[in-house]
């Protein structure tokens, strides 16, 4: 049977949902799916055993994996993957950074951003920021290496108890040329953008960092996450990790509010897979209305407080 190895993404001791979504993509190809978890202890690996459809979780614990560095992980993944026909990673900044180094070691072409599995070797992927869709085929007999566009796949259930296999670190050279210094994250009580079922994004129309407070209040009523367009980030209203769009995060919430966002192509590329898009803009000609499921021409400074009070 076709054997698939999924490389787990984890951060701060948590397996990220991107891992489960990648397993979902894998489950459309074969029933034999293993996850490889590289970490500095096996606690995080045990979380991965609950993901449905997974047979084995291979855990390699080594202090070299205390923080994910691609040049350290790639030779290990390449070594472990010799038994597998497919290697899949989430198409996050983690997967995008790591996968091509595996491509180089194994000398196999990589598919970026798999958005659907048509046949086991035929995939669809977005190009030109999602303005065109490419269907590609990987030649028979070649190992398949791909990153999975997580916005295109749902998270699987967590009722599994896969085998946890402590795996020995293969004898590969661990380079010392890359050193992790620090990471600065915006800590927030709200759900993560890529996980939230409701996302409220603000654009340049919001006008200032202070005015984003209105969006936060509405978000807290709805249990929503808050995002922003590139224009709002560039204007300095919010930090870059809130950016939704082709150059930011690509998301697929059930419900998306675009508030004071005109609808640049690059923003739309990031929300194409949202279930329902609600656009709020005072300009009736704003392009965002062309893709919105529900549009309302309104001044956001009146609209948001009205909606927020309706939810009481």
């Amino acid at each position, binding site marked *: 049977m076709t054997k698939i190895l999924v490389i787990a993404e984890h*951060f701060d001791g948590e397996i990220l949902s991107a891992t489960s979504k990648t397993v979902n993509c894998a489950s459309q190809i074969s029933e034999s799916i293993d996850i490889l978890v590289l970490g500095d202890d096996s606690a995080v690996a045990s979380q991965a055993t609950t993901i449905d459809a997974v047979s084995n979780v291979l855990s390699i614990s080594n202090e070299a994996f205390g923080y994910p560095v*691609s*040049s350290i992980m790639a030779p290990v993944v390449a070594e472990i993957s010799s038994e597998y026909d497919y290697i899949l990673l989430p198409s*996050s*900044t*983690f997967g*995008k950074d*790591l*996968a*091509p*180094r595996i*491509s*180089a070691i194994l000398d196999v*072409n*990589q598919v*970026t951003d798999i958005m659907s599995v048509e046949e086991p070797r035929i995939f669809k992927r*977005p*190009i*030109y920021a999602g*303005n*065109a*869709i*490419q*269907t*590609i*085929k*990987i*030649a028979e007999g070649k190992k398949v290496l791909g990153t999975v566009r997580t916005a295109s796949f749902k998270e699987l259930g967590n009722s599994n108890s896969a085998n946890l296999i402590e795996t020995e670190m293969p004898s590969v050279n661990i*380079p010392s*040329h*890359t*050193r992790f*210094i*620090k*990471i*600065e994250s915006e800590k927030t009580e709200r759900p993560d953008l*890529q996980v939230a079922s409701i996302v409220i994004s603000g654009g340049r129309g919001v006008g200032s960092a202070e005015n984003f407070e209105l969006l936060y209040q509405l978000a807290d009523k709805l249990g929503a996450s808050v995002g922003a367009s590139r224009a709002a980030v560039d204007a300095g209203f919010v930090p870059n*990790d809130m950016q939704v769009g082709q*150059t930011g*995060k690509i998301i697929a919430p*059930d*419900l998306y509010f675009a508030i004071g966002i005109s609808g640049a*192509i690059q923003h739309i590329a990031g929300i*194409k897979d949202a*279930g*329902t*898009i609600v656009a709020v803009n005072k300009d009736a000609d704003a392009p965002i*209305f062309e*893709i*919105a*499921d*529900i*549009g*309302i021409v*309104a001044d956001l400074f009146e*609209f948001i407080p*009205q*909606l927020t009070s*309706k*939810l009481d």
Partner: protein
Amino acid sequence: MEKILVCIKRVIDYNVKIRVKPDESGVVTEGVKMSINPFDEIALEEALRIKENGDAVEVVIVSIGPDDSQQQLRTGLAMGADRAILIKHDGEIEPLTVAKALSEIVEDENPGLIMMGKQAIDDDSSQTGQILAQLCDIPQATFASKVSIQEEKATVVREIDQGLETLEIDLPAIITTDLRLNEPRYVKLPDIMKAKKKVLDVIESGELKTDFSSSIEVINVTPPPPRESGVMVNDVEELVVALKEKGLLS
């Protein structure tokens, strides 16, 4: 360091609305404005600033693509690059092949730093820099939003999903650039005149050792499925009703 190598790709200008060919073989490029991939332009700008800061002596630009890619290389020379190399090749090329061909240039040029965009805005692959780094067995710092060079190493701030990450890497290394790193300069007319006199070497892809075949076949290229047309509501009341009907609000 002596030299920075910047890799640039000729792509459809980012302002052009893409049209898929009726036969689904690709997108229309005939009569369409072409430019340097904007992420690569940022890489070149950064390399020029590093040189102007006295941390590098020469900036060399390289591209792989059709003969017309000379236009983009001339633009790069007008921005301030010292010298250009074109690996002439017609037709689609996979990132693995591009990186292998570039590794031959790296071997010849021996740069202290290699820079390119984090991805090209046409195929959105985001692979070439990382593959090249592995092929050359050197460190990488992708999605860079801040770069500082100190003698034999670089400190790079990266825009990753979890926030801003800082890495320290030994040189030589590859840095791929994100949007917020800088704003590329405008090219002035006298610079365009000067650029015409700069060296632009053309190498035929057949002269390289790299095999340009691929194991990936493009079956077709289609427009994205359109979203169903939406409705307009008049006020918050109507919106709440519509969302409740869809089961999105309780």
